[in-house]
């Protein structure tokens, strides 16, 4: 079974983090939301496994009070 990977899985995380932040530099909150949405959609398609994506959404939503849909 290949579920969602939650162990470290990629090298150069500082570099990636910096790029992520830089992508949002000078963006309004609205623009940022859309950039994040674009990135999410691109990555979701790349992952290509609806079960893994659903697991990731559930995990991300655990920070919120209500239950994810």
């Amino acid at each position, binding site marked *: 079974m290949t579920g969602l990977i939650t162990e470290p899985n990629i090298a150069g995380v500082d570099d990636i983090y910096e790029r992520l932040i830089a992508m949002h530099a000078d963006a309004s*909150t*609205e623009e940022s*939301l*859309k950039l*994040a*949405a*674009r990135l*999410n*959609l*691109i990555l979701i*398609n790349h992952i290509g496994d609806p079960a893994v994506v659903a697991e990731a959404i559930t995990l991300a939503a655990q920070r919120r009070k209500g239950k994810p849909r």
Partner: protein
Amino acid sequence: MANVANIPVWRDIGAAPHPAASLQQAPLVIVGAGPVGLAMALDLGRRGHPVVLLAQLDFVAAGSKAICFAKRSLDIFDRLGVGDAMVEKGVVWNVGKVFWGNREEPVFQFDMLPVKNQKRPGFINIQQYHVEDRLIDALGALPNVDLRWGHRLGGVETHADGVRVTVETAEGSYRIDAEWLIACDGSRSAVRDALGLDFEGRVFEDNFLIADVKMKGDRPSERWFWFDPPFNPGQSALMHKQPDDVWRLDFQLGWNIDREAAVKPENVDPLVRAMLGDDVEYEPEWYSVYTFQCRRMARFVHGRVVFAGDSAHLVSPFGARGCNGGLADVDNLGWKLDLILKGEAGAVLLESYDTEAIAIADENILNSSRSTDFMTPKTAASSAYRDAVLELANELPFARPFVNSGRLSTAVALPASPLNTPDADDWRGAGIAPGFPALDAPLGTGWLLESLGAGFTLIADGWADGATAAAADGFALIEPGTGDDVLRARYAIEPGTACLVRPDHYVCARWRHPDADAVRAAIARAKGKEL
């Protein structure tokens, strides 16, 4: 019943006389002569049952409601003998295009009939009153259907084995004792109210303007949908062709608007102008504002009262699932009630109408709600996702399937239905599994779906006992010929294979090598023996 509500008239008919006896008997009363009630009466009438159909109005109403009728509905109309009449009048279309902002090219395009080689197209557009007209004409040929114009259902009393209804006419009221009452009386169902029942679910708040206009010109018969077009910034819009040079223009208005002002020609015309351009000549046909709900009743069967169409479930118009969903109810209910009335099945078979029609309604509501959420984002994040999807769809193919401007109505699969006989053989994913709608295919010089009868049909290839079993157990037999390769491929037919199709054209069982007992058991199961 004069036209108290000032409803626009499409065709005047005139009230039916008040009956002589003030208490009447009828096996079946259908309430409501909208498309669902009319089709229901046609189905049961063609099966030979005496039907009383109550219509509160004494005319066919004009005004624009449904226009898009899906292939599945056309197949149902074919079974009811009115398919050709609908398609001859309707505008055939298969392609939908989605535009965004001021880009000239569509960001996305779809084909409503991806599987070719079927008798009917993906969709036709035809005004609801034209549909009603054709159903009424067909009913006129049935002496056993008593269509009572201007007879309004006033009250309902239910008993264990029947229903007593009170009917109001301009000349006073009378009563009917019926074995079964089918409520097809629309979203404000009087039957639902009389039984103290209600809808559950979600209500949406948005306003849409319908402008049906008459104009000439040779625009293609495709569904054109815009997100955020320059002529209606920040909102959506739709343009669709109907018969008689009528076009449906639909503009999202947002909420917090003055609905009365919104339909005034001086406010509509600038929108229409902006969409069509200054040089196009048009005449207004019908302007109205609508809002919508996505809700259904908890159950559709309440003893001897059965609900179908808008009286049972409501969806937003995006996806054209309202009337098409109602016709699916008719299809599902007709043969079941027929068997019950003939004593070939117990009333318990209606439990399967409840589960199957609810499964269909739920899929329609789910799709409709999702379209609505995509089109009218409720949060900053959902707007961001929507815009991101449209932006990406314009650039990259992967994002196009995310675009949801209304997933259009198709036949709903019922894999979990208790009427199915689950597969015992290994089909390796091929063919059509129990619970899935039969797919059309060429058959000889005609088509498979038009060859299916009003009862159960077995599509069997080279099963020696087929004819004997069919004669003994009262089902029809279709044996594909040598040239019927498309049919063989679609149903994964090999020598010996047999596939059982229900009267409403759903596959309910199949075998690599059947025997008569297995077929008999599957038919019994589909008639509700195990319920």
